[in-house]
């Protein structure tokens, strides 16, 4: 039994774990990634991380926080007991309190050719490079939205890519408006300028988005609407997405209320379920700084330091983070055109090969599942469910255990463990 179990070792989860450990309680952090740090601090070597990120991981370890990587939470029996796949085995972990810090994933919208190998997410490209993919000499086109474009473009260039284009789907006005709102956060603008300097040779266009990928067996060309003109780029990689969406599957299994696709939390980061707190991007996309603040609040609250969690400075910082998140969502909302790129023949559900023509937008999500198996494949609708919600207004996919399809070997282990 631990005092607090944290799911997710990103900025949010690490910050919460530190707050718990500083108060003398036992905390275990689980993450399905290979190293701590979550999406933004994904790394192969600790030394490659920015100093503040490295300091946070080192501080957690120095305080005795146990971080189990390659550990996937596949089910929740109750807020006090989770089922975990760890190195090919299934185990149960009891806990007094639970903090969810499961982060966000990308909103991937279907367009002709999006299933070709070499077409990846924007964060997807970032994750693959940080996991060791070499881009030396590869021609890359990036079409996405929001602040994530800048670090990814810079990482791609640093990894040796020949970056042909960075396209932002939001309008110039929206981007300028967002930039102006950042004047109060000069360090963010400075960071953006540093990234831009790294990818200075590549053109950056607002109001531009991918319309098709073409190729045989691998992407060979990207067709991009560049400010109203269709331009074709010969390329080896296309990185594209329409922003981030909170990962709420585990929260849903626990019965936590979600609002607009994000886990609903109160001022203490408490969810609608007693004993369960939620922090970071699973409660709404708002970046790493907000995630760290929310972690501090939840870590304190989960061990009963209510006054600490209520501290005015923390609460104000968190509220500013929430406002920043709302500004992000407004400025970089996916434009209507992106929702209509799929043609009749375009695959919508990548796992079950369901095409656009096979589904009728007037159906409900349930009917579509019954009649076409859309969302019934391995990813459990993580990709197509999110897309169909955006395109057709269908209700969000309802998460069901086991999360992340354990392999046969793992289930064998669970059966053995629970046999009388």
């Amino acid at each position, binding site marked *: 039994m631990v005092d607090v179990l944290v799911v997710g070792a990103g900025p949010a989860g690490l910050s919460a774990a530190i707050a718990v450990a500083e108060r003398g309680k036992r905390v275990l952090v689980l993450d399905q990634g290979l190293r701590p740090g979550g999406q933004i601090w994904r790394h192969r070597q600790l030394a490659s991380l920015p100093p503040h990120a490295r300091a946070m991981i080192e501080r957690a370890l120095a305080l005795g926080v146990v971080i189990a990587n390659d550990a996937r939470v596949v089910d929740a029996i109750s807020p006090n007991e989770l089922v975990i796949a760890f190195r090919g085995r299934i185990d149960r972990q009891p806990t007094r309190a639970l903090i969810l810090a499961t982060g966000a*994933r990308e909103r991937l919208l279907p367009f002709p050719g999006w299933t070709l190998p*070499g077409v990846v997410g924007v964060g*997807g*490209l970032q994750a693959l490079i940080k*996991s060791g993919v070499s881009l030396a000499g590869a021609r890359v086109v990036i079409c996405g939205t929001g602040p994530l474009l800048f670090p990814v473009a810079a990482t791609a260039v640093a990894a040796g890519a020949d970056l042909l284009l960075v396209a932002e789907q939001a309008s110039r006005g929206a981007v300028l408006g967002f930039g102006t709102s950042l004047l109060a956060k000069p360090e963010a603008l400075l960071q953006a300028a540093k990234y831009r300097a790294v990818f200075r040779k590549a053109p950056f266009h607002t109001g531009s988005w991918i319309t098709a990928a073409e190729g045989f*067996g691998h992407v060979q060309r990207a067709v991009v609407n560049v400010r109203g003109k269709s331009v074709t780029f010969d390329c080896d990689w296309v990185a594209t997405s329409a922003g981030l969406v909170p990962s709420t599957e585990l929260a849903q299994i626990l019965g936590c209320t979600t609002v607009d696709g994000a886990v609903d939390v109160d001022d203490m980061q408490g969810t609608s379920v007693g004993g369960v707190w939620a922090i970071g991007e699973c409660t709404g996309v708002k970046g790493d700084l907000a995630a760290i603040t929310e972690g501090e609040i939840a870590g304190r609250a989960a061990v009963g330091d209510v006054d600490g969690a209520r501290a005015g400075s923390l609460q104000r910082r968190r509220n500013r983070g929430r406002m920043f998140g709302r500004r992000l969502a407004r400025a970089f909302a996916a434009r209507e055109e992106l929702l209509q790129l799929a043609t009749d023949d375009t695959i919508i559900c*990548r796992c079950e090969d369901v095409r656009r023509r096979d589904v009728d937008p007037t159906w409900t999500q349930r009917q579509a599942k019954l009649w076409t198996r859309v969302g019934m494949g391995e990813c459990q609708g993580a990709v197509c469910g999110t897309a169909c919600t955006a395109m057709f207004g269908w209700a969000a996919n309802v998460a069901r255990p086991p999360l992340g399809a354990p392999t046969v070997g793992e289930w064998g282990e669970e059966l053995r463990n629970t046999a009388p």
Partner: protein
Amino acid sequence: MTPYVTITVNGVPHPVAADITLAAALLNIGVTAFRRDLDGLARGPVCGMGTCFECRVVVDGIANVRACLAPVRDGMSIESSA
């Protein structure tokens, strides 16, 4: 010097950096088809973080292993689609 491990991909041994994911190793080797769809068309990694399931390969006889979540290990044997 980066330490290396040897993985076998569809019967052929390849030296790969020891601290990368299996997805990165396969992409660096030049594997494009991690799996194939119902029409036999190639699919490869998309999200890089375990959500899309497009990077599934067979590792040491175990199906449905997400290459983007798997570390490379010396002696690992992988079957992909091509």
